[in-house]
């Protein structure tokens, strides 16, 4: 007799597929936010499974800061072609050109904060009523209280004190015109679950996640890769190192880790032994103790 038990990855998979299908069923015009990072890759993988053999019933939206790693864009374009998905791109550069936002200046300038405006503009322009993101509750303390279905007012703001209670499998996506939802199908996954699932499902990953040689600068413990967006200050210098990325965001603020992990199995061992959270290498989170909470209130993912 078979045993009627799912292992933790298959149970998380079942939950996420349920949530993604619920989005397609409850909303008129949903979108899946695709950043090219591992979480959104896994989310997209689950979405493809959720509707197989049909195509995705929603487009993908990439908020392009203009500071992306070229590897991320190549990976994105190949994947989109492979699954015949529809890709929309929201450009931070365009928001700057239109005067919607002003570029930060200074040595730690980043477009991370600016992308919130581009995202909200894209949601409004296309009339999206639900946007799925790969955020996980274990990532950061402000995310630990996030719902699967997270309600946003007409300004895209999140009010942590006034969230809808979420019970059983009953997700309430009802809203007034102009409001929208952020949906987090991977809420219950940890970084380890994501990597184990990538291994289990043999999901192809961008090369940035694996160890490679690259010139970096050590800025207060954050290793930034050499690019035209990172300017050296006094006393800093480029050094060749063997590194990989644990998260992938902008070249201007995504820190690398020194690593020799060249396979998914190696990465899993490394994650198991890690003594720093993955966001520990994100310069954007180091701005203040509540920087994630502040950005989320304003509409950041």
């Amino acid at each position: 007799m078979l045993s009627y038990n799912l292992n933790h990855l298959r149970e998380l998979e079942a939950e996420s597929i349920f949530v993604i299908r619920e989005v397609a069923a409850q909303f008129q015009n949903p979108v899946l936010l695709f950043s090219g990072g591992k979480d959104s890759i896994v989310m997209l993988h689950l979405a493809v499974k959720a509707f197989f053999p049909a195509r995705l019933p929603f487009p993908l939206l990439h908020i392009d800061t203009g500071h992306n790693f070229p590897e991320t864009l190549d990976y994105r374009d190949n994947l989109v072609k492979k699954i015949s998905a529809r890709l929309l791109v929201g450009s931070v550069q365009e928001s700057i050109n239109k005067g919607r936002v002003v570029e930060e200046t200074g040595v730690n300038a980043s477009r991370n904060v600016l992308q919130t405006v581009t995202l909200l503009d894209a949601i409004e322009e296309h009339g999206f009523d639900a946007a799925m993101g790969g955020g996980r509750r274990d990532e950061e303390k402000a995310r630990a209280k996030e719902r699967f279905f997270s309600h946003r007012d007409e300004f895209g703001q999140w009010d942590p004190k006034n969230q809808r209670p979420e019970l059983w499998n009953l997700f309430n996506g009802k809203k007034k015109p102009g409001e929208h939802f952020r949906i987090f199908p991977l809420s219950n996954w940890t970084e380890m679950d994501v990597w184990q699932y990538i291994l289990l499902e043999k999901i192809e990953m961008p090369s940035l996640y694996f160890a490679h040689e690259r010139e970096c600068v050590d800025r207060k413990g954050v290793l930034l890769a050499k690019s035209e967006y990172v300017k050296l200050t006094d006393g800093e210098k480029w050094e060749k190192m063997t590194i990989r990325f644990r998260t992938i965001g902008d070249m201007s603020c995504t820190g690398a880790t020194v690593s020799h992990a060249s396979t998914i199995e190696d990465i899993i061992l490394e994650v198991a032994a890690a003594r720093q959270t993955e966001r520990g290498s994100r310069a954007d989170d180091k701005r203040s103790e509540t920087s994630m909470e502040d950005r989320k209130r304003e509409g950041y993912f």
Partner: protein
Amino acid sequence: MNRNNGNAYLDMELLRFTTAGSVDDGKSTLIGRLLYDSKSIFEDQYEAIKITSEKRGEDFVNLALLTDGLRAEREQGITIDVAYRYFATPKRKFIIADTPGHVQYTRNMVTGASTANLAIILVDSRKGVVEQTKRHAFIASLLGIPHLVICINKMDLVDYSQKVFESIKKEFQGFASKLNIQDIQFIPISALHGDNVVEKSDKMPWYGGPGLLYLLETIHIGSDLNLVDCRFPVQYVIRPQNDEYHGYRGYAGRIAGGVFKPGDKVMALPSGFTSTIKAIDGPEGPVQEAFAPMSVTIRLDDELDVSRGDMIVRENNRPQTCQDIDIMVCWMNTKKMLPDGKYGIRHTTRDARCIVRKIHYKVDVNTLHRIQDDLDVGMNDIARISIRTTQPFFVDKYQINRNTGSVILIDEATHETLGAGMII
């Protein structure tokens, strides 16, 4: 993950539990201890709370700060809402729904408890069973949590006394006999010092049972879901518009109960039409068997008119089809429930409207007494009510199946979730 065996992670199970407690009974310390001792705390997180502890002038690193989420909470020193925490051992992955113990306690604990397999209730060994202990146990039983673990905490403050432990245990058992809980266990612990949390304590040789983490890792949860009564609420219909899969028509959903197999004779509700399962597509491709809580796509031999909100069941084992339903409702909004009020209602994937026909009584969550002279149902109240729905629902009693026995009530103007209902 087990580093000696690359595939050990494929045997890990998922256990969801909820913790309940008030400000001083050491709940945050216990969670902090579980996370810290199971090495789920990273250096940067530990450094951050170490700095905060020093700033506050505390003598030791306050593990309770690990569960401290939003800025408003840190400023006020309280926990506002349900927070979810994660940790794993080589045997299991754990999801903790951490609920606060102050004013909006009932609403939060009900939310956290709705998906839990197990509840941990903390009792202060110096105070014994108090009103709040009973309230926690009642809500756990109301929400149908199959396993209850009573941690008698702060044993260090009563000299690790067996007598104290046994007397609290006896008192709790006396009270719990009135509740519907399948499995209750008692563990003497000290969250502060780590006794019987992750490591078994050598200070209580009289205690022969397991430590808390060992219990969490080994408690049998395989039979927590209903695998007898087949229920498949249809969530979404998959009809690819391409040549390769022309004619494919699949009903997507998450199995709410039972085991389905190709060849099974099934009936679709509400139409009552019958057919046979042609194939079941799981996330990994076609499967020979699908069971709760899998997300699958079911294909039938016949083209039936089935859509979202319908339910596929076995012909000879059907849920009740009804419009008049009695529920225990937990109210979750500052706006009071209106007698004769009309609300949106969601059951599985089915939406309808309902009207409150009668409020029978409220339950005093501290004494379990029925209150019949005050039928004002407000925030955090639990009441037995009768409702009538605009459309038939296909329901089971909550105690038989949590998926097909639960509903939420929704405000038709603001769309907020107002109440959580368990079908009686």
